[in-house]
């Protein structure tokens, strides 16, 4: 796989997934 494509894909995937988990965790933690 093309290196720049791989870097962009993994960056976007990580960013979106981490933010999703962060927001959901924050929501669940909130009383």
């Amino acid at each position, binding site marked *: 796989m093309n290196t720049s494509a791989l870097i962009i894909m993994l960056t976007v995937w990580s960013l979106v997934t981490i933010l999703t988990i962060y927001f*959901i965790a924050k*929501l669940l933690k909130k009383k």
Partner: protein
Amino acid sequence: MTDHSEGWGSKIGLVLAMAGNAVGFGNFLRFPIQAIQNGGGAFIIPYLVCFVLLGLPLVFVEWTMGRWGGQRGHHSTPFAMEKMGKKKIWRYLGGFSFFTTIGIASYYCYLESWTITYLYHSIIGTFRGMSQSEITLFFNHYHDMSSTHSGIPYENVIAFLFCLALNVWILTRGLKGGIEVVAKYGIPLLIILGIFLAIRGVMIQPGEVGAVAYGYEGLNFLWTPQYDSLLNPKVWLAAAGQIFFTLSVGLGTVQCYASYVRSNEDIALKAVSTSFVNESVEIVLGGTILISIAVGFFGIDAVRDLVANEGGFGIAFQTMPFLFQKFGTVAGTFTSVAFFGLLFIAGITSSLAMGSPLVSFLQDEFQFKKRNASLIVGAAILIFGLPTVLFFKEGVFDEYDYWAGTVGIFFFATLQTILFSWVYGADRGWKEFNRAAEIKLPNIFKYIIKYITPVMLITIFIAAFIQPAGGDWSVIWKGGWELDGSSVLGRMLGKGSRETGIYTTLARYFLLGLLTLSILAIYIASRRKEKSKNLKTRK
């Protein structure tokens, strides 16, 4: 107006229901096709920019309007918009919500019913041993009222009625006992099925069960950056359209669900959470499953040709059952059930949301019981949906998708943004959005909502209205402007390839009828309100 005391059972239930509203066919079928049609990597940058500048701001606007309206007893847009705009005209403009939701639900339910049919045929093994052309024939015969390929007469009508009845039944169960239950079980299951399918797709290797390429070559195509695309308006239009479709903005469904939250509930965190759940599902799973499996078995050039010739939602139904067979009898059946099961969950969580605004309106303004309101909504979808079933091949389905599912939502979203930013006031609106919020969102969004989002929406709307042939915008300086058949004006003037048929004209009359009925319902509700107000004054 009545205060039917309904609410969500839990915050996670609300977030999953709202995510279910957003996660739909657009995530798994439309996104990969849009990406392929717009040059793969060329699409992703404008898509992400549109998510931040258009998608998120509109989600914030709709959540705010929803909670604001709910506190005043309005769980649908017409009277909430009137109170926000302080002018009667807004109540009728708010009626566009019924036009878009019922108009889209009318063809969406039919699309959803395909997944039920394909699930059924995957389980009983109908597709086993069928060639690619036979699978395509199956799809074509499915919509043909005069013939059947499965031995079940009028199978498409039966599946549509079953699907509609299921939706109405769940709607009658209410928010907590119906929609929330479906979302609580459905969305986690959808994510598990999606992860399974995505991994299976990426793992495909050439030579394995007839594959011609690595599955990940599809990802390579989707993610290779093409910076010149940033200057192509056609790609921007497609990216903006996808963001609208995927986040389910411009419908009134977000407002309806948000109107049932408590007045002191944090909506900022919920709005970003649901948007990001949707984006994860779309970018990570939706961008992987269809592309990797199709590229693995057909090769990138064949997939590009297939999308160019077929396009639309039907492509997965015409190819996937054939490809899944290659995995073997048991694995193939399991994968096929997983794929169509995933699509069914994605579809039903969205169609339930589309039925909700009108149900709430009938409860609020006409004091209907939930059951009766749901039955009326079901009847409306049946009346307006049957033409898409009976005349699918004649283009009625596409006509609904275009006017209600594309132009309608764009127009309604533009109206809402103007109301929020310039009539109600962006400062007040932003303050209202952040009320009771634990999360601190960057203030820059206030300015984006006020200036950038409306300008982008209006620009895109004008561009879509007069788009030149083939999306070639260089005619601006070269001259020789010719309208594209898919532009709004081009469709109005009958420049498209399928514009002249009596069925597309019929579809337009039906949609016009739907709009008229929406406005009429609001007018009658207004009269009732005035009468009851007069009676109270006399007393």
